[in-house]
């Protein structure tokens, strides 16, 4: 026993207990391994490509938004940072990629990289100020940051095009080979590829010791201080990474639609993504993969049929989720699985 163990227990550990211990450690150590169900979203996404060739433009927007939701899940679901201003990073990325493409630097991956850096910088600078607060004050400040950027973009007519939006983007072909076509085929696969890489990154982060410590901060920040965690630094790192990913999502939307509207920084962009993530399930990595398509497809359908009452139905759905389906779709699925396991 090491010097801080408890000595002299006088218990001889039996062979069976040793095996049980080894088994438990194994289960614990395997949590980050890929499970077969994790293939499902990617199979579905590829199937959609072939099955719905007329909906690929919408599909590309959904994929980009899933990445945006994923970035939000990292801060909200894992680190427990409440935010109503994530559009600040989405919009920063969109404008960064948009301005690049509008000024003759339309290489798509370069655009993504610059968008990620710009959004991360905004996340780092604003985060170093506002992450000193928690809860409601923090929520208000995230809202404030996004609103300030919105007004900035709105007023900076000569650069951003203001309320008319940024026009004249010329995005070059992906890998110099695949043009962004009218049907959204390239856009769809481009977004899918970037989302896949983004998902790999986030997945790796949440299972790393850093990611686990974020969960610890969400669960009990005071205790994290007491076990020697530099809490502020961890939160800031998570916030900056999340900002970079949101920036990439914004860049994807800008590049695939060849347009940036000022509402890329708008409040709805911050609020809706929260609703989408809530519908799917927060803090579960896959909430966005369910909530975003659900919301956006429904919006696309219902907005045509009943544009006035669309928000009423979403509101009602949200109330029901909060009351009866905590944890969103994935939360419900988890409970059903647990019940099944318990019944066996």
């Amino acid at each position, binding site marked *: *026993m*090491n*010097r*801080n*163990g*408890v*000595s*002299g*227990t006088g218990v001889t*550990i039996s062979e069976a*207990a040793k095996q*049980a*211990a080894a088994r*438990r*450690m194994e*289960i*614990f*150590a*395997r*949590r*980050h*391994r890929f499970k077969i169900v994790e293939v499902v979203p990617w199979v579905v996404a590829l199937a959609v490509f072939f099955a719905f060739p007329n909906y690929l433009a919408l599909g590309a927007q959904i994929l980009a938004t899933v990445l945006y939701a994923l970035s939000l899940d990292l801060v909200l679901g894992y680190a427990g940072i409440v935010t109503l201003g994530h559009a600040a990073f989405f919009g920063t990325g969109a404008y960064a990629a948009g301005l690049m493409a509008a000024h003759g630097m339309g290489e798509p991956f370069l655009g993504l990289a610059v968008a990620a850096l710009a959004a991360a910088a905004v996340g780092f600078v604003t985060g170093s100020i506002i992450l000193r607060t928690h809860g409601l004050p923090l929520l208000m400040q995230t809202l404030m940051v996004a609103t300030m950027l919105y007004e900035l973009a709105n007023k900076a007519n000569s650069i951003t095009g203001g309320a008319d939006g940024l026009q004249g983007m010329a995005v070059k072909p992906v890998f110099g080979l695949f043009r962004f076509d009218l049907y959204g085929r390239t856009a769809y696969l481009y977004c899918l590829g970037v989302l896949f890489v983004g998902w790999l990154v986030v997945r*790796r*982060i949440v*299972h*790393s*010791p*850093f*990611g*686990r*410590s974020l*969960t*610890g901060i969400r*669960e*009990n920040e*005071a*205790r*994290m*201080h*007491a*076990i*020697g*965690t*530099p*809490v502020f*630094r*961890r939160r800031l*790192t998570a916030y900056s990474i999340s900002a970079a990913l949101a920036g990439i999502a914004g860049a994807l939307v800008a590049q695939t639609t060849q347009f940036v509207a000022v509402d890329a920084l708008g409040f709805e962009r911050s609020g809706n993504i929260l609703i989408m993530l809530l519908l799917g399930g927060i803090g579960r990595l896959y909430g966005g993969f369910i909530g975003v398509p659900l919301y956006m497809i429904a919006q696309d359908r219902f907005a045509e049929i009943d544009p006035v009452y669309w928000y009423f139905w979403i509101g009602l759905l949200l109330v029901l989720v909060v009351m009866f389906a905590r944890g969103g779709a994935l939360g419900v699925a988890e409970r059903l699985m647990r019940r099944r396991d318990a019944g066996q």
Partner: protein
Amino acid sequence: MTGETPALETKALRKSFGALNVASDIDFTLLRGARHALIGPNGAGKTSFVNLVTGALQPSAGAILLEGEDITHLAQAQRVKRGVVRTFQITSLFRGLSVLENVTLAVSERLGMGGDLHRPAGNRRVIIEESFSLLEALGLADEALRPLKELAYGRQRLVEIAVALGLKPRVLLLDEPAAGVPSGESGIIVETIERLPKDIALLIIEHDMDLVFRLARRITVLVQGAILVEGAPNEIAKDARVRQVYLGERARA
């Protein structure tokens, strides 16, 4: 007493919130390997003292020395790295996480791996094995994978201690380790504390006099933010002032 530097010292430590003095010029010494209890009536400033020593509160004046080194201005996390560790009066853990994860979080921070973004936590066998053997030693192995919140409160108190031990403390401050635990279950907590490695300097903040007299070899009585008296348990038990302000009030059965 030996000439060795004490594990922990406070010199004229003071903390006031406006007119309220929660610590007024506390000169306190915790020897290496000490089994020392800090007692006092409610509101005497015991938990504030813990907060000052661990860095959760900044003192208004005075100094805190860890093995002779001034740590007064170090942040809480840095003090933990140097071995100043506490447990909480009201269990303060990661309720949604498994028991094992509660400990691995602490162990990986101690080893400086808490900020690692790359390798999956599950691949850190050293951390998992060390954490698990701590749980085994405290009799928590069977509950290792259960969410902490499903454990009985007494068991959660043991996890508190396991998390603290995962940080390899040199000075361990136990804030009412048996608080809220039914008397039938507190025995195991006392036994666990008795078995802690001898080189950890222990400061036990406690209300339960039976527990104090069983564990402590030295007792400091704190009243209204100041040290009233300090001595061996039998001296404290006999001290008239202590009986008046503290033991008397509690009317031991």
